[in-house]
């Protein structure tokens, strides 16, 4: 297995991966909900960093803005406005067993996936086109795909989001009388 050259990108990737995995693991093991929310924020930011490393800086920033900024705050609000003590240790039940099986399966799948790749030739697998039609700007790339090729799915997604929003409002309101 050829070890890639130690560029800034590689170092950054390792550090970011460490942040993502570390936050995720820490989230699983903390007891207080508010720490979990904070750790999830860490995961979001780390993932954004990986997007940026992949030259998808628009997506990366959107990730920070929406997930790390807005959604984490929303979770914090929800947690602060309700009372939460330490979470009780849940006893082993069918749910737990199912989770273990699912997680184990995922691990196996990932292991298999990694092993089937010939890492010596990893650079040839993602050929870089020299000049994409939109230039170097990922903003234009995103805009191009959303507003030309994927217009209808994009609009559909926004409709679904609105439906979800309205549904949430209706559910949150107590039933009258």
């Amino acid at each position: 297995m050829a070890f890639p050259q130690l560029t800034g990108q590689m170092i950054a990737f390792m550090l970011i991966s460490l942040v993502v995995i570390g936050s995720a693991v820490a989230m699983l093991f903390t007891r207080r909900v508010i720490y979990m929310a904070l750790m999830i924020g860490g995961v979001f930011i780390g993932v954004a960093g990986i997007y940026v490393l992949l030259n998808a800086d628009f997506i990366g920033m959107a990730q920070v803005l929406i997930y790390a900024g807005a959604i984490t705050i929303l979770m914090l609000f929800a947690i602060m406005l309700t009372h939460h003590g330490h979470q009780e240790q849940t006893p082993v039940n069918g749910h737990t067993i199912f989770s273990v099986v699912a997680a184990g399966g995922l691990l196996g799948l990932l292991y298999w996936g990694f092993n089937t790749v010939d890492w010596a030739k990893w650079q040839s697998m993602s050929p870089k086109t020299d000049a994409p039609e939109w230039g170097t700007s990922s903003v234009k790339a995103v805009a191009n795909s959303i507003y030309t090729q994927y217009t209808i799915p994009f609009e559909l997604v926004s409709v679904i989001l609105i439906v979800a929003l309205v549904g949430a409002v209706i559910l949150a309101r107590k039933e009258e009388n």
Partner: protein
Amino acid sequence: MFEWLNQPFTPMTVLGMVIGGVIVLSVILLVVAYSIYAQRKILAAMHLRIGPNRVGPFGLFQSFADILKLLLKEDIVPAKADKAMFLIGPMITYVPSFMVLAVIPYTATHLFTAELNVGVLYYIALSSISVIGVVLGAWASNNKYSIIGGLRSAAQLISYEIPLALSILGVILMAGSMNIVEIVEAQKNMWFIVPQIIGFSVFIIAAMAELSRVPFDLPEAESELVAGYSTEYSGFRFAFYMLAEYVYITAMGGLAAALYLGGWEGPLLPGWAWYGIKAGLFIFLTFWLQGTFPRIRNTLLMTFSWKVLIPISILNIILTAIIKIAVA
């Protein structure tokens, strides 16, 4: 972008990064220290007072004395506070405030600053993270004034982020780019403050709210909430919150100068000087308002953002788009 990222990691590149970081940080800290000094002097002049005049000539070293004092103070953590959160809160607010400075182009050569394709988005995204620190610090303090201040902060900052971003969208439409350097270059012929005057007005108001400056200083409204989210903080953790606030003022000044006032463009003087003057104007405006206005009612605050600023900024975007198509 990120040219140095793909270079091999050698001692020279590391040294370059470190030196660049140190220079940018010290320049910013100097600017922040003197904007605090300027605030006190300007406010004093408006109040017919003298202002700081003891430390150094004309009190020029007052800010450093203050910072030193805050750093040397005892680090007090309230007994009933959530200790870890209490300690982390100021950092979460503080770190993004310095990170946003990376995209502010001080000069035409933008030495040591990043030329990001998504510069504007980067600024908005990172500054939204600071709220988390405020909310966490407020919650961790276990103090009712803090919680009210923290919740107010969060509500205010999130509500005003939208008109801020929408008003900037007009500029992005005009320039056809999110890259701040390109936006500045697009203003060679005409500063965007002229065609984007509606957007600029919304921007200034939303920026004042984002920075929690008078008349939108509700999160730390001292006459109601004592000191808002920072009530329980003292020493250098308090200094972190304060520094973050003033760094954001500087950064917002830089952003305003780049987006609306033509950045480093200007005759005779070098680019950085023009940039400084323009950003300084914005910073002065914040202090001027502080000396002039009372605090707005917090019920009006939300209504103002959602019912006035956001519709206006959306209107501005539509107008800009129409004009741009008509011209082209």
